[in-house]
């Protein structure tokens, strides 16, 4: 490995070739202040806050975008650098609304933190606001361009990490704004509602559409029987809002918190994940053994991915699993099976999903099949961030809560169900059940480690009953093209498909890195959250979805068999090709 030697504030430091001044400074315990920089993204040098002095250069250089050179002597702070940075912050504040108290990012805004750290007390520049309209056209994401600091993170994420291209810089100079092409509304744009823009925005310019008030109202309504369910990835991330390390597994406290908020029953989306595996797993077995429909089978639990496929790969709809996502399954059952078992009036049941995701807010309304119980199956989908706010607003001391358990019928889960929270997890869970069903034996080793981890595309071949099963796993929407383009090419050439089973999750790292998770995710945090998921699995008595006793009981008492008539009515959905631009 090539290394180079430089000095930072007089301290010699050895860095890898290609390292930036920003990275080098970290090695000597200096975190140069930044705003536009994000570890997921290439340096963009938009904000100018990270300026440093380099001996021999007559201008200040941006630490984020300056590669270290041999012998470079760098100064990261002195009174002049401090004043320049402070001026940059004041200039940004001069075009930024002063309504921090009402802002969605109050308390965790990167600009607010810089203003606090630099002790900004005065406005030397006149305030110039642009009065740009707020775009709240989607059920998931709100874009408030007035708050935008033009750091570019959202557009770069949308284009480079997600390959969606809903957002772009329009205009130039002081009239630059972030918007969809031709200023169409977000709901008319290619936006897939993944919320990665909101997870990467340093300020309150793009954020989840909050449904907290509706949930508070429902909890207060004596005619409503509110039930909650929590997604796999929420339990390993919500702790970050309460001072825990990322990845801390807090399932029991979450159940307790939801009960104390007023939910009458607390279910687990992991139960729905186990159920998804039975439905989707059998879809795979059908296709794999009987050629009943085309391979590869492609997973469909991720609603942002569903939206993307309908827009960008409509020709692959026949390959798409028709199984609904886990929380949609739980929603449908909470309004059919649950009242049947308990004698409750289904009309009164109000289902709230707690999700790491913004796209789930869109999914619950996306098609007729989301009303399979005869009413809207899931009434509200909250993000992890929104639930954390509700817990704080209610004064619940989360850290001191006892561990509780989920309510039965739709609450038990096997280790496989929890895996849905991380990239590769749906595939691993499916492989466990598919292998057991096809071989008629329980597995000795249930772990499929080749498809874990943060590589953008992972593939492996497993032998099941003497036949190879070729699987691919992609996460981060931009990584899917390389996989699906191979499938398309094979189809066009008339050759056999390169894969039998493909898992896709829109967000990097899977749901642990979801757009609705606590702010500040990077690869280190994604990996820590995923570790929590794998700990949950490893600590489970039952590791495979088909071993889940409540799932077995559901089939015995209510559904019949996987892919049966009732399953099709309640647990499966349809897809429609959609234009990339609605107009």
């Amino acid at each position, binding site marked *: 490995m090539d290394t180079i030697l430089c000095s930072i504030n007089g301290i010699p430091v050895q860095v890898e070739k290609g390292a930036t001044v920003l990275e080098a400074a970290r090695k000597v315990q200096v975190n140069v202040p930044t705003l536009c920089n994000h570890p997921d993204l290439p340096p963009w040098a938009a904000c100018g806050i990270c300026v440093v002095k380099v001996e021999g250069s007559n201008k200040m250089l941006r630490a984020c975008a300056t590669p270290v050179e041999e012998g470079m002597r760098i100064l990261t702070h002195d009174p002049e650098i401090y004043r320049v940075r402070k001026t940059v912050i004041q200039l940004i504040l001069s075009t930024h609304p002063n309504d921090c108290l009402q802002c969605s990012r109050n308390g965790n805004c990167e600009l607010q933190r810089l203003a606090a750290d630099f002790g900004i007390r005065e406005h030397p520049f006149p305030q110039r606001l642009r009065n740009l309209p707020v775009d709240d056209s989607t059920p998931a994401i709100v874009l408030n361009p007035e708050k935008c600091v033009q750091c570019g993170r959202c557009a770069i994420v949308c284009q480079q990490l997600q390959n969606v291209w809903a957002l*772009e810089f329009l205009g130039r100079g002081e009239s630059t704004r972030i918007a969809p092409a031709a200023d169409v509304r977000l709901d008319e744009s290619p936006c897939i509602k993944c919320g990665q823009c909101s997870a990467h925005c340093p300020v309150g310019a793009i954020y989840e559409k909050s449904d907290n008030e509706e949930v508070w109202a429902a909890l207060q309504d004596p005619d409503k029987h509110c039930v909650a369910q929590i997604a796999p990835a929420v339990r390993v991330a919500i702790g970050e809002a309460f001072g825990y390390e990322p990845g801390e597994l807090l399932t029991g406290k979450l159940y307790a918190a939801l009960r104390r908020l007023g939910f009458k029953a607390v279910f687990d989306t992991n139960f729905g994940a186990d159920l998804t595996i039975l439905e989707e797993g059998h879809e795979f077995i059908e296709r794999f053994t009987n050629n009943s429909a085309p391979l590869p089978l492609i997973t469909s639990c991720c609603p942002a991915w569903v939206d993307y496929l309908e827009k960008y790969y409509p020709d692959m709809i026949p390959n798409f699993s028709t199984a609904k996502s886990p929380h949609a399954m739980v929603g449908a059952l909470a309004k059919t099976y649950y009242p049947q078992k308990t004698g409750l009036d289904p009309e009164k049941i109000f289902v709230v999903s707690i999700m790491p995701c913004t796209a789930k807010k869109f999914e619950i309304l996306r098609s007729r099949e989301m009303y399979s119980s005869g009413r809207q199956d899931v009434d509200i989908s909250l993000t992890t961030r929104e639930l954390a706010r509700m817990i704080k607003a209610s004064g619940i001391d989360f850290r001191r809560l006892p561990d509780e358990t989920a309510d039965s019928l739709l609450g038990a889960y096997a280790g496989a169900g929890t895996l849905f929270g991380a990239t590769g997890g749906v595939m691993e869970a499916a492989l466990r059940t598919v292998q057991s069903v096809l071989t008629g034996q329980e597995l000795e080793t249930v772990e499929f480690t080749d498809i874990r981890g943060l590589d953008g595309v992972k593939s492996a071949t497993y032998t099941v009953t003497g036949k190879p099963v070729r699987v691919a796993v992609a996460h981060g929407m931009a990584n899917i093209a390389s996989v699906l383009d191979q499938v398309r090419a094979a189809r066009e050439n008339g050759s056999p498909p390169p894969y039998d089973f493909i898992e896709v999750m829109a967000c990097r790292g899977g749901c642990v890195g979801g757009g609705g998770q606590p702010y500040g995710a990077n690869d280190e945090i994604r990996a820590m959250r995923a570790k929590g998921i794998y700990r949950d699995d490893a600590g489970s008595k039952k590791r495979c979805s088909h071993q889940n006793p409540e799932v077995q009981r559901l089939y015995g008492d209510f559904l019949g068999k996987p892919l049966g008539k009732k399953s099709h009515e309640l647990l499966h959905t349809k897809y429609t090709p959609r234009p*990339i631009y609605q107009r």
Partner: protein
Amino acid sequence: MSATLDATAEEQAADLVLTQNLKGFIEEKKSVPGSLISVLHRIQNHFGFVPRSVAKETAALMGVPLAKIYGVITFYHYFRTDKPGRHEIAVCMGTACYLKGGQDLIDELETLLGCSCGETSADGEFSISAVRCIGCCGLAPVMTVDGEVHGNLKPEDLAGIVAKYRET
């Protein structure tokens, strides 16, 4: 110039589609890196603006996201995204004209024509734009209509000038 989307009617009009000639040019250029701007120039020259329908067609043919095309055409002042009026009024906002009341001329035109600077009047007759110095500062404030220079203007002169062009 703001990108508006009020072009739906235009979009449906059959003549706002790529010509064979333009398609051929795109075919020739699409594998050449950095050729998007030259393609968009041809389109702007042909239509007088970049219609949204044509931008979409171009995006599909070149395999370029529509967002990227709008990034380019809203960045460079050369491009416009709405159809220019039958007559194009350009008000000089160079230093001399600015000091002699260029902004008053724009304000008056906006009132007379009912559209903002950078836009086209609802009847499609006039579009107003602000330009940098056109090189006749001695006549400040000046504006051009379809390239003809009108100098030493006062806001009250404009109604008559507009009426004259409306008739031609």
